[in-house]
């Protein structure tokens, strides 16, 4: 699971709503996967990123060199873009958990795949 993906995930436990974001990340196994750098792509991602959530996740993973926010003229700042590229796309969480901040429900990440299935009771009206 990449951090960009994590940035979009929200808990859908009943009744939680927007308070289900962001999911608290805990990782036991992380891998760095090189990904081809596409500056245009990364630049377009920047406005869509929820920074607080990203920083929180990066913190738990003890990542370094993580920009604190978009800087002026970031579209042309290669260093910035490369750093963001790394954080968003190259960090892969293989094993760990995601926790709903509101309900505490834990979702496992296994072999890089988060399992967000809720049980029947959790989805019943």
């Amino acid at each position, binding site marked *: 699971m990449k951090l960009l993906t994590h940035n979009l995930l929200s808990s859908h436990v009943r009744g939680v709503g927007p308070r289900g974001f962001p999911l608290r990340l805990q990782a036991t196994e992380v891998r760095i996967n090189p990904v081809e750098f596409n500056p*245009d792509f990364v630049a*377009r991602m920047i406005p869509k990123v929820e920074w607080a959530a990203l920083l929180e996740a990066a913190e738990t993973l003890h990542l370094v060199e993580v920009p604190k926010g978009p800087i002026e003229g970031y579209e042309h700042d290669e260093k910035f873009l490369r750093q963001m590229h790394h954080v968003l796309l190259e960090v892969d969480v293989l094993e760990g958990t995601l926790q709903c901040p509101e309900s505490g429900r834990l979702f496992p990440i296994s072999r890089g795949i988060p399992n967000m299935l809720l049980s029947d009771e959790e989805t019943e009206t």
Partner: protein
Amino acid sequence: MAATPPSPVGLTRRCPRTERGQGWRERAPGMVRGHGPVGVRCGCSRGVYAAPLSPLGWGTSDCSPGGVRPALSGLPSLVLGVSGCGFSQVYVTDVYRVPAVRQALRSGTSSRRQFSGLARPPNSIAMDSNSQSNYKLSKTEKKFLRKQIKARHTLLRHEGIETVSYATQSLVVANGGLGNGVSRNQLLPVLEKYGLVDALLMPPHKPYSFVRYRTAEEAKKAYVTLNGKEIVDDLGQKILLYLNFVEKAQWKELGLQALPPGLMVVEEIISSEDEKMLLESINWTEDIDNQNVQKYLKHRRVKHFGYEFHYENNNVDKDMPLPGGLPGICDSFLEKWLKEGFIKHKPDQLTVNQYEPGHGIPAHIDTHSAFEDEIVSLSLGSEIVMDFKHPDGVTVPVMLPRRSLLVMTGESRYLWTHGITPRKFDTVQASKGLQSGIITSDVGDLTLSKRGMRTSFTFRKVRQTPCNCSYPLVCDSQMKETPPSFPESAREASQLEQDYVHRVYEEIAEHFSSTRHTPWPRVVEFLKSLPCGSLVADVGCGNGKYLGVNKELYMIGCDRSQKLVDICRERCFQALVCDALAVPLCSGSCDACISIAVIHHFSTAERRVAALQELVRLLRPGGQALVYVWAMEQEYNKKKSKYLRENRISQGKEEGTSSDTAMPELLVEQVPNVGSRDSECCVSSVTDLPEGGHKARTVTNAKLPVHTNRTSFPSQDLLVPWHHQGNPGEGKPGHPAGAHDPGPVFHRYYHVFCEGELEATCQTLNSVSILQSYYDQGNWCVILQKV
């Protein structure tokens, strides 16, 4: 257009014309087999349905009252509540919304005026035949008119013959054809009375002919006088002719000119001497057992060896073999046939049938659970034409010459019915004489062949284990297991999906994935049209087929099946496991979504809507979603024009009895075959929504039918088999089913969509506009935009 479906005002419980109270029967708002969701059915009609209302209400009208609206013939009509006695109630809010109507209007084949009677407010009851000039018709006249219209409809739907309401030189003579025992020398003199006949075309096996007169006036004379006239056929039976004008004499050519798959006829497999010997060896003197059997068989004599065949249940008693086994003389033949490869298994049951001319056997499939695959039949004494019918309606007549061996295996044994029409003459090919094979359709090369006494020796092998063929719909072994029923609650729906969707995909994931490798072009087109850096969710991503199509997008796949998501992961895509009804992505976070072949797995309308609503929730304003669902209307049948889309209405006989008289008379109720189903364009599931006064429906315990591959869908809600071994491309309609294979079979639940249904469902969503709606590769598709 009304925003909410009007309530069913005026849809009374009594048919206003016949005053018959029992006429209107409320069907389960969920299901009527073959017709999908309906509301009320008028029993006095020939099964025309009145449907509850919706902005895109669909109904099908078989008989327009008194021939009033010929423009609607064959079209899926917006006339709802047309009863066979001529009364109709109309609830349509906007004629233009219906694609078929729009099409007809656009193509200029009908005028707006012809549909204008439809757009009336719900509480005015419009358009009954009282308003027409044939108000004072007598009962017989009205009945005749109805039959004539029915003939017209049937000709159009089944034969592609378009009749016109103005006079031309050519007429189609329904019930006056070779197929129903009317010969040329009977019909021609009758027709010649009214004018100079340019040509009389009598297509073989068809219950109609075409006559072309020199002038339209002569044709008109014939039409006026002969319509409804009684003539006498070959066997002395009375027949009523129905005439209609046509532009030209044209009928659907039998596309399938091949023998049913698995069928083989081996000619001259025994000598004349052997034939004589075999015939003489049968002792027909009645013994007690035979007398009991005779009460079931009106038409022929039978004798059994090896095991007795019981006609009460069409099965054998495996625990009670008959003493003596097969007659000794058969041994040498069977050994020879085995050695030469004409048969693969040594049979242990023999039925000898003797058919006098005029005898026949009703169309049937030999019981699956009784006998193994291979069934062979030796024809002695006389040749015969045997009719093979596919459940979709295709009939192939096959000539079985004297001393030939008919071998039925696979599809021809398990799926096609076979039968012999009780008649004294067969239509055979003049030039080829009595050679085996399909009877030609060349109208100029046909002759009649008088039947003689025929004896058949049918050898079969009794089955010791249940049948597990690929044709569950017609298989008594497989149909014995209690089929699942249509869900009546959210929990049942969820359980049904668990059993018949999720569990199955987990089992078949790898095999399934291997069959899903080619991305569909229009989906690719959609993805490639998105700007670089778009965030896209693929809800129900399966094996990730689309996740890598456009490298400039950030795509996240979600699927319910862990195994399928694993496959995505192996391909280095971002994917997670979740339910499509609860996608764990932030609202408004996606620039686009796709959901390809997913929503049809939800078993209730509510859940399908919820799935769509979830897709919309994920979209940011302006974002687009692409949805594909399986169409009821298969590609297989798509070659037909809209006019020919199956709109057949159940005659009220469901499985039905097989009839002894298999004569294809045009206006007789269809002889229902086992497994014969009609695909039906029907009321959208919008009507199921808890909206605007509609109560939660009370669904009767409707069972879900199992689809048989290579046939049309039996209904909108069904189970589709997946054969786990050796069947690439299985599970899609129109794909060849391959040889009969014994791998484990999984049933997946589907709700296939009618034309317009997906659109209608999307229209109920909040803050959504439909950008595009189309048909692609057996799917109905929409592109939605969040406003």
